[in-house]
């Protein structure tokens, strides 16, 4: 049985089953009707959008979610940029301290304990013309 045959057979079964729904007793029909009415009485209404018409509904349904997303992205971007600048300011302040100490020849003892610093000093004094 290929798909076409299957479909055809199933349609015939459905037709027979439809006839079965006509044979329901009056009591069952009445109960189904009562259930139907009760369900309708409890239908959930779409409260959020219906109270606002036109621009208001458009704002609440379409714009607000977009604005929320944009605000979140903006806050994230501001945070990243702020952190970057904060770090660079800190670095600059440290460098400034070292530079001024070098110029004033008031280097702290810790600077001489730093191997990196002494090799840099050596290297820079060798590379300088005098």
């Amino acid at each position, binding site marked *: 049985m290929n798909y076409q045959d*299957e479909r055809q057979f199933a349609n015939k079964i459905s037709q027979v*089953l439809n*006839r079965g729904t006509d044979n329901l007793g009056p009591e069952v029909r009445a109960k189904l009707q009562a259930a139907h009415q009760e369900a309708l009485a409890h239908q959930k209404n779409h409260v959020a959008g219906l109270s606002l018409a036109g621009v208001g509904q458009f704002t609440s349904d379409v714009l607000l979610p977009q604005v929320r997303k944009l605000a979140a992205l903006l806050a994230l971007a501001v945070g990243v940029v702020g952190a970057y600048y904060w770090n660079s300011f800190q670095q600059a302040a440290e460098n400034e301290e070292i530079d001024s100490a070098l110029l004033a020849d008031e280097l702290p003892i810790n600077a001489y304990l730093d191997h990196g610093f002494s090799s840099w000093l050596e290297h820079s004094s060798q590379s300088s013309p005098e």
Partner: protein
Amino acid sequence: MARHGSDRGNSLATRIELSEFLTGIERRSFKQAMFAVQNEDQALDIVQDAMLKLAEKYGDKPAEELPMLFQRILQNTIRDFYRRQKVRSLWTTLLSSFTPADDEDGDPLETLQTHEGSNIATPHASLEQAQVLAVIEKEIKKLPPRQREAFLMRYWEDMDIAETAAAMGCTEGSVKTHCSRATHALATALKTKGIEL
């Protein structure tokens, strides 16, 4: 077969649309529940629960989503019934070993007079139709639940494969397999009984 979609795109179901949908679906859903639980009162309770849940929780959904949502709710309600029934039957089995079993092996044609006879106005054709209906309904009851669900949603409710898969919470491939198996099982059963549609 009926299709309950709305031509109004994604607009929300109005009271009239919901009412029309329920009118179209109520008898078939009752039969579906009957195939599953085989008890009129329980089937009515299931349909009532399903309708109420649909209206209360999804009454504001677009009309074209209602068939899938309703089928999902209906099948879940039937499954809840099975679960409760399992617990109940455990106690019943413990209390009595003489619980009457479902009349699986009985021939529906034998019980036809008491089952359908009262509504039939004698002509031979009507009787024959009623007999065929009784056999088909019995064979549908015998199908494994998932096959029955898939077959009825896909072909009786005329839902497409994607909708059926969404309602059953399975893949589209599974829906196709269930439908194909159910169709073959029904075809074989009818052939064995010498019924040709």
